[in-house]
């Protein structure tokens, strides 16, 4: 197992496992927003804005995993 192979594996595992949690959480967030908009359609603007802010926060976790995998692929300090 060379360091290149391990880095590839690490990059794949980072993104694949790192995307599960945020995806589930975003689904729950959108479902809650749908509930709230259905209950009170006149505040749909505020709810949509808050939803987008919340989604960006959740998305950040997936972005962290993506950055780690990109570091492993393109800026790996152990590979020439």
């Amino acid at each position, binding site marked *: 197992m060379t360091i290149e192979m391990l880095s590839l594996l690490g990059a794949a595992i980072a993104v694949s496992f790192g995307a599960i949690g945020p995806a589930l959480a975003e689904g729950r967030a959108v479902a809650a927003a749908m509930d709230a908009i259905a209950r009170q359609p006149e505040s749909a603007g505020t709810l949509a804005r808050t939803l987008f802010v919340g989604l960006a926060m959740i998305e*950040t976790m997936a*972005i962290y995993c993506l*950055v780690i995998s*990109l570091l492993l692929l393109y800026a790996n300090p152990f590979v020439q």
Partner: protein
Amino acid sequence: MIETAPLGPHVAFWIGPVPISVAVVSTWAIMAVLTVGAWLATRNLAVHPEKRQAAVEVLVCGIAGQIRDALNRDPAPYLPLAGTLFIFLVVANTSAQIPLFNAPTARIETTGALALVVFASVHYFGVRQIGWKDHLATYLKPTPILLPLNLLSELTRTVSLMVRLFGNIMSHELVLAVVVALAGLFVPLPIMALGLLVALVQAYIFSVLAIIFIGAAIGAVKGH
């Protein structure tokens, strides 16, 4: 073909010993466009505005309204910073769609610089509002035992600002490059449309978070 590594240097030219990267040149171009646009938009202001001035007023009052909603106080001291961040980020993020143009925010140096600006402005506004002793004392609230955690949270929220914007814009460009290489010229069009949405949302998120961090420092928002 991906032209250059996402995290490696991408030098356009050298001024003596100093490398000027492509992102810096793109930022200069965007600065020039925004400066000229702002000057053109604010000439001959009238009390009863016609269309051009009304459009600019919608933008400025919209941003001021967002700040007023978040901080519950007069938005005037914070409007230049928040407004510039928002307008610059909207233009910089959507400039990725222009052919042959490299979005500056797809590089971690640009987003790192913007996050540092927000970090410095939090301390500037905090010290200006409540004095430096009280501002430093906020790190000892609610108890002094939490001081390391407060310092760490200060660092991580700055880093997360930087990584969020960088990751979103750079990964969008990377996905576009890979899809074009794999599937042809017209397939990425829906991805480019998604990229426009992501650009606007990320610009809004960055500006709103900057406003919230400043609000926490001046005591207008419950601490984060």
